[in-house]
């Protein structure tokens, strides 16, 4: 590509890592009627791995995905409560995204079954799943660069007769639908502060705006369940706050949200239920406050010696090292 192509390159991934203190995050929490109801319902659920939920929208059983000799995902049982925000957290390499890809039809499992709204979907194609109401976003944002923001939105609208090759030839067949979709798209873009950008190419948006566009686009499909793969990754702190607000708004509009994240702080404040994965398995689940104190979670996340300063000179002392190693043996 020629040299001038680099001139308008959006400043992506140049933002600082997300560093928000708890107070700011707590301030983003919406105290809605729905939030209280969901918290109340889930309060009665015992916080243990594989527990049954009162009204599950998604149930997965015995899901395994192996790459060669390595088992990336090995989930015995998981239920996701309808209308709640469920966070799937875990350290890097825990298998979150792989599990996510399996659930959304972007990868095939070695074994396992799962159902969405009571229907078996284990080997359904990704497109069909999306049409049945389960829509996803991607960790590496997939904005359709050479389409405008509005075209991105309209593309996502379901059941457009103009998307059929023969229907496409006759404008009257689809112009009405197109007009209604445009109104709906503009309304959603307004909510996500992207309305002024509607005629810009999506490729010219910043990294954070692309995340917003992807979420807005997913909403165009009228999903029952929305799956967000690391929505906060590479987004600057100011935008994280508004993203968290949007995620809660989705729940308050009656959608089920399942999102993957590895930053625990952000998760704690907005999720109604937290599922923790480590080394392909689910090691804990429960309401955010109790799960964060779970020993298995702390260990999985930080290692058993997270309070040991690795820059500490005393580590050079063989006696101290021997003690730490002995502790590790006993675990």
């Amino acid at each position, binding site marked *: 590509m020629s040299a001038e192509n680099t001139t*308008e390159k959006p400043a992506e991934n140049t933002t600082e890592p997300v560093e928000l203190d708890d107070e700011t995050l707590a301030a983003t929490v919406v105290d809605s009627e729905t939030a209280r109801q969901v918290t109340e319902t889930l309060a009665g659920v015992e916080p243990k791995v594989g527990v049954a939920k009162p009204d599950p929208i998604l149930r997965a059983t015995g899901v395994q995905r192996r790459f060669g000799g390595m088992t990336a995902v090995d989930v015995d049982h998981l239920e996701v409560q309808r209308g709640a925000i469920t966070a799937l957290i875990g350290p890097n390499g825990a298998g979150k995204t792989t599990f996510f890809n399996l659930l959304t039809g972007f990868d095939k499992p070695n074994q396992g079954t799962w159902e969405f709204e009571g229907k078996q979907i284990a080997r359904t194609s990704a497109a069909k799943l999306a049409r049945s109401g389960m829509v996803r976003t991607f960790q590496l944002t997939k904005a359709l660069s050479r389409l405008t923001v509005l075209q991105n939105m309209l593309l996502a609208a379901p059941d457009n007769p103009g998307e059929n090759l023969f229907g496409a030839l006759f404008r009257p067949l689809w112009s009405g639908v197109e007009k209604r979709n445009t109104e709906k798209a503009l309304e959603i873009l307004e909510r996500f502060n992207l309305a002024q950008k509607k005629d810009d190419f999506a490729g010219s948006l910043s990294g954070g705006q692309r995340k917003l566009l992807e979420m807005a686009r997913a909403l165009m499909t009228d999903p029952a369940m929305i799956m967000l793969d690391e929505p906060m990754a590479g987004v600057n702190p100011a935008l994280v706050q508004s993203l968290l607000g949007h995620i809660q708004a989705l729940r308050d509009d009656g959608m089920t949200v399942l999102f993957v994240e590895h930053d625990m702080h952000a998760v704690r404040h907005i999720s109604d239920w937290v599922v923790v994965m480590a080394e392909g398995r689910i090691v804990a689940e429960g309401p955010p406050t109790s799960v964060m104190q779970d020993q298995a979670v702390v260990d999985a996340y930080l290692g058993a010696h997270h309070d040991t300063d690795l820059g500490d000179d005393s580590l050079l002392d063989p006696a101290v090292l021997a003690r730490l190693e002995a502790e590790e043996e006993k675990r």
Partner: protein
Amino acid sequence: MDELSRILIQALGQLIAPATAAYALAAIGLNLHFGYTGLLNIGQAGFMLMGAYGFAIATIEGAPFWLAFLVSAGAGALLALLLGIPTLKLRGDYLAIVTISAAEIIRFAGRSTLWADYTGGASGLAGSTYKGPFQALSPLPDGRTTIGPLEYLNNGSDSWWTRIFAWSVVLVAVLLVWLITRSPWGRVLKGIREDEDAVRALGKNVFAYKMQALVLGGVAGSLAGLLFVLPISVAPDNMGRTLTFFVWTVMLLGGAATLFGPVLGAMLFFFVYMLLRTGMRAGLADVMPAQNVEHLAGLMVGVALMCIVIFRPQGILGNKKELAFDVR
């Protein structure tokens, strides 16, 4: 002075030549593949050869013109299905490999003596064997007509009738492409070009859309093959890799993913190409033999293709803004 005007008139004639129409139509098909959908088809000559054989053999076997026309279109559609079913689920590069090999396979199959009763082997099919029904359709009176500096027979191989027919087909194709690419269907194609996983995640059957685009572009390619052989003959070695790369040059010159790009590209390309060849033949007559001039002109086409891709990847009609950011 006489020499110069002869060269210019010859180049002007290329603007409306039947072969130019054939290239324009082939590039329209390729534009559906690459420009709108992002499918890498490096074997458009294969589709053209299928269309040419389909038309010629059907006519020789006694089919009326319009039936032979449909056979030609069907041959392209069939090839698209055959190539698309195994490869469209794979990454884009595989389609590229498969199309270029398929085009060569078709050419070699045509040349082989195995089916020489139908294909005529390496020498191909003489024009007189299949042009009859087409030329009989002409509504024009016999004789010659002169428009401006251009003078051709009304009927026959290199005639006004062939030109009118060829450009009418191109016009209809442009109209159809305009209708389908301004529609939501066209928007899905462009979405697939940008990122097919994203489109899949929004509930579209990506495979079906890619297949539709491949078949439509393939049919355009095979009908381009029909137009290509109308004024000449079916000769498999005329329709090899060079043809494919000329079609690519035409499309990229005009501008991928633009409506009139392929037509403008074809006209401009052949105008300049003819100007170069006849000009150099006259100007360099003392320095090099005519044979070498042909090679030199071919070499310059290659350099031109590289220069377009490097310095003006959006072509003449393309939108510079679309390339202002990295596509991948």
